[in-house]
């Protein structure tokens, strides 16, 4: 595959869902089928694009690369290696099922579908992006996109304060983690000079980077914080069950199958770099992961809401995955002790997504509260189907024999066994117990699901709850679908869960279907020979562990223990934090500085400015030497300047004194026009032109506003000495700073002129390169900025000032070759700087302009509609409820 093609295919795969999602907004709301078809194009298109790639096993596969801002290391570098491609496949594959499920879930609710699909597509693009990006910054961008789309989807019921609170909680927790990760990645990039994963792999392989130094460890911890918050590791796990406020398609997709795995994925991306080199790796990850694993399962068994149960088992499974990457730090048989990481992730998606899908389906037709579902199986035909598939998926959760899950859990136990075998560290027996305990809880959960759903129905009056959206977001009004669309409620789940059994029962089915996704497959095959199907599992510690877990689980499932409702104490962390900061610490701390009086703020800033100036000279006024450059011109040369200075100073001084508002506006205008004159004197025709036109416009603006605001009775203004003192002090400070700054030498720039000397200032670089360049910078050719490099020429043959004759010769001289490149192609350097050299800056600027205009329109339009502004309830915050004791 040609690299350019690869780049575009990958870009297309990433953005295909987003484009389809955006286009779907153009379809009028009532057309559900066209919308569904268009949306399906998103993930299916992504799958098709991705299918062009063969898998490079191992790390450091070919990358696709487009320069974006090379000087800032912001490039589009994509990496279609095994892990990334697997993840992208997972996202788009499960995505197809979820799109269909959402159609069944929302039924004929055209409005919800209209709103829901674009959000889902944003998420899909973001996560495929996370999976495929190679550049840190690109990764972070997509990473934050997943947080945002998750926020939007959790807060789906935007009218319900609790769901908005949950959304904020999830966003703040994952967002804070994201910031840590951003810091870690930037630090890593700055420290190592490598801004892509591939670059890092190579640097580490070649020993260019001193691993295990403090900076790397700090980076690792920061990155892991990001991964741990996203993947809901203890003690951040509370946001994930909270996120179950989202509609079930979202829970099934984001909060179990895909997004929460992003943290695991990042850990998986980094383990080849960090696991073997950072000694802290296992000691940090394994305890946290293992604790999360056991704790999640322990809480899960005590919940009654189906979605809550599955949410906590997800937390548990995420802990398992983290532990798995932690164990990768050890060696077994000369290989990293990591067996089938991809299989583990896949396996979880293959039973957890169906569990959520069917939990949502059951909630849709009945309720999600487990005790109320007694005998659900016997209700009707649909209930029977749903129960069967829910239990099939639940059997996967329990990692029962003849499922893929069983093999996966065996693999995990093998890892523990290997670590135990290699290190002889007795602490790993704790991990063995943790593994057994987790398995036990999962089996018990399955047993309880089974016994409740299949219990003989009591003679109970038939009642239909529609409790899934107990928060009443209005699904109840929508008639339920029949036929195919109703079947979509459970069909996707059934489809996904079937793989659990196909791979668990039929020999080699897994090998043909999925094993090619897994790079570490050969490792296991190397010494155990084959995929551990249930019927040819090896006798040994791992198998015993599974058997013990199943035995204990059955006992616990039927037993009377742990049947109460247990609330995770971590649930209070975020509300507590919120209350603490907004109710106690915040007001206390801010009360000192935030007085609410504008004069105080302005005064503080101004006094601080003067104070900093005094501090910088150390209070020693003898340092202030009159610069020689203060006046270099003759009196006649100065005459126009003197006149303008007089005008500017006069208007500036008169403005505070004059009280008549018309006069004040005129004075302001005079001041502006005089400043335009100063620009002209300073040989800045562009500025003078701009200032003149702006001044006209702003005079009109001012007059308009003054006519909207009535003239208040002119107050007799008491002369406030403090104001005068501050004003004079600020004026003197600025006067002196301006005067002294004009004569100072500026630091030289990293750009070279034709003679190989550093340019004295950046302005000269712009002057030289504005039309076309004859200079270069002391940076590699690939990073040349401000133009396309055409050829290198001999510095001696070029005269720096020959602006037109320098495009010919081509001869490279070492690193400091002079590069001739197209400059901006303009003679007006100021304009070239604005639209070319600093085009990004100007882009930002016109965006600000547009935003300001929109602000003005919105502010003024709002009044017309609502008729009043002063409604404080609009602005009340929707933070979490204060701590309830």
């Amino acid at each position, binding site marked *: 595959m040609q690299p350019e093609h690869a780049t575009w295919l990958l870009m297309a795969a990433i953005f295909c869902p987003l484009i389809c999602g955006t286009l779907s907004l153009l379809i009028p709301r009532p057309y559900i089928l066209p919308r569904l078809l268009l949306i399906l194009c998103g993930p299916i298109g992504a799958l098709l694009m991705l299918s062009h790639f063969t898998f490079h096993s191992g790390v450091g596969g070919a990358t696709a690369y487009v320069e974006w801002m090379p000087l800032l290391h912001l490039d589009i570098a994509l990496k279609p290696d095994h892990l990334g491609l697997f993840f992208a496949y997972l996202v788009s594959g499960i995505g197809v099922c979820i799109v269909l499920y959402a159609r069944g879930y929302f039924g004929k609710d055209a409005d919800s579908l209209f709103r829901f699909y674009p959000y889902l597509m944003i998420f899909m693009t973001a996560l495929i992006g996370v999976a495929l990006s190679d550049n840190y910054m690109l990764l972070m961008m997509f990473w934050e996109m997943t947080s945002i789309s998750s926020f939007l989807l959790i807060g789906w019921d935007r009218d319900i304060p609790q769901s908005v609170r949950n959304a904020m909680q999830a966003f703040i927790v994952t967002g804070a983690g994201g910031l840590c990760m951003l810091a870690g990645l930037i630090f890593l990039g700055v420290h190592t000079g490598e801004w892509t994963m591939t670059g890092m792999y190579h640097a580490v392989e070649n020993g260019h980077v001193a691993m295990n130094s403090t900076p790397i460890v700090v980076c690792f911890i920061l990155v892991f914080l990001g991964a741990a918050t996203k993947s809901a590791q203890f003690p951040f796990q509370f946001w994930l069950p909270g996120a179950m406020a989202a509609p079930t398609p979202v829970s099934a997709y984001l909060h179990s199958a895909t997004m929460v795995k992003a943290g695991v994925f990042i850990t998986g991306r980094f383990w080849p770099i960090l696991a073997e080199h950072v000694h802290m790796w296992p000691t940090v990850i394994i305890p946290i992961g293992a604790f999360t694993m056991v704790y999640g399962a322990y809480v899960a068994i005590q919940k009654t809401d189906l979605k809550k149960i599955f949410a906590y088992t997800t937390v548990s499974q995420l802990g398992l995955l983290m532990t798995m990457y932690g164990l990768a730090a050890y060696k077994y048989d000369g290989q990293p002790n990591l067996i089938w990481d991809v299989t583990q992730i896949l396996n979880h998606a293959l039973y957890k997504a169906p569990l959520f899908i069917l939990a949502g389906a059951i909630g849709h037709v009945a309720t999600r509260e487990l005790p109320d579902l007694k005998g659900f199986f016997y209700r009707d035909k649909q209930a029977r189907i749903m129960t069967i598939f829910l239990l099939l998926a639940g059997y996967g959760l329990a990692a029962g024999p003849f499922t893929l899950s069983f093999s996966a859990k065996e693999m995990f136990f093998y890892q523990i066994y290997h670590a135990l075998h290699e290190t002889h560290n007795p602490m790993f027996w704790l991990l063995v117990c943790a593994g057994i305990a987790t398995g036990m809880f999962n089996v018990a959960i399955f047993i309880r699901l089974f016994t409740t759903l299949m219990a003989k129905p009591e003679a109970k009056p038939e009642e239909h709850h529609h409790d899934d959206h107990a928060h009443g977001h209005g699904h109840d009004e929508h008639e339920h679908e029949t036929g195919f669309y109703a079947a979509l409620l459970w069909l996707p789940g059934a489809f996904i869960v079937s793989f659990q059994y196909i791979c668990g029962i039929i020999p080699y089915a897994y090998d043909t279907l999925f094993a090619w996704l897994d790079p570490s497959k050969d490792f296991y095959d190397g010494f155990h020979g084959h995929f551990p199907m249930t019927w040819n599992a090896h006798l040994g510690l791992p198998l015993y562990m599974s058997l013990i877990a199943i035995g204990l689980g059955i006992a616990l499932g039927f037993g009377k223990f742990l049947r109460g409702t247990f609330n995770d104490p971590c649930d209070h962390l975020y509300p507590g934090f919120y209350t603490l900061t907004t109710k106690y610490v915040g007001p206390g701390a801010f009360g000192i500085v935030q007085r609410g009086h504008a004069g105080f703020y302005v005064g503080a800033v101004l006094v601080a400015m003067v104070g900093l100036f005094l501090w910088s000279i150390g209070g020693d006024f003898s340092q202030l030497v009159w610069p020689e450059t203060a006046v270099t011109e003759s009196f006649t040369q100065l005459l126009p300047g003197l006149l303008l200075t007089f005008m500017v100073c006069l208007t500036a001084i008169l403005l505070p004194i004059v009280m008549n508002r018309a006069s004040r506006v005129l004075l302001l205008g005079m001041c502006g026009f005089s400043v335009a004159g100063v620009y002209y004197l300073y040989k800045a025709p562009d500025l003078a032109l701009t200032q003149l036109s702006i001044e006209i416009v702003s005079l009109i603006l001012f007059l308009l506003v003054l006519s909207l605001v009535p003239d208040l009775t002119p107050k007799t203004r008491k002369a406030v000495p403090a104001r005068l003192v501050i004003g004079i002090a600020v004026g003197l400070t600025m006067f002196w700073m301006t005067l002294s700054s004009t004569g100072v030498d500026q630091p030289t720039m990293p750009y070279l002129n034709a003679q190989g000397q550093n340019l004295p200032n950046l302005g000269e670089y712009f002057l030289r390169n504005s039309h076309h360049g004859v200079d270069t910078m002391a940076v590699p050719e690939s990073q040349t900025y401000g133009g396309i490099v055409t050829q290198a020429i001999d510095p001696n043959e070029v005269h720096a000032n020959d602006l037109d004759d320098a495009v010919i010769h081509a001869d490279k001289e070492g690193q400091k070759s002079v590069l001739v490149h197209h400059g901006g192609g303009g003679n007006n350097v100021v304009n070239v700087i604005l639209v070319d050299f600093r*085009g990004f800056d100007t882009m930002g600027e016109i965006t600000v302009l*547009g935003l300001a205009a929109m602000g003005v329109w919105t502010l003024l339009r709002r009044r017309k509609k609502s008729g009043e502004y002063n409604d404080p309830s609009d602005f009340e915050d929707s933070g979490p409820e204060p701590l309830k004791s």
Partner: protein
Amino acid sequence: MCTSVILKVGARLIVPLSLVFAVYIYFKGHQTPGGGFVAGLVASVALIVHRMSFGSDSLRRMLPISERYFIAIGLTLALGTGFIAFVLGLPFFTSAHGYLHLPTTIGASYDFEWASVMAFDLGVFMVVTGVVVGMIDVLSKEIQ
């Protein structure tokens, strides 16, 4: 709206001239003083004068689309120039320039030096015009 005859007659003269001048300084902006910002401001001053003399409805009739769309179009245009370079496999906002040989009536051809950033500058021009005219327009409506 009641405005003086002098203003109206003046506006008839000034507005087209200023608009032409705005276009001129936009095109010459890359080589001589001027550019999108100034051109946008001059154009908006002209439009505001027009609005002040002939009223808001007249302005509406004069502009093919609402000035608010100017902002959207301008921003898209500016961002688009960046993306074109990107699609060609160059870093974002890479520029290109060259000469355009324009035949003139006096025989010798006139070389107009174009640059790809002129599209960007056109975006700036449109945003500035849209913002200024839009703001003044909405505030003027408040008075009525």
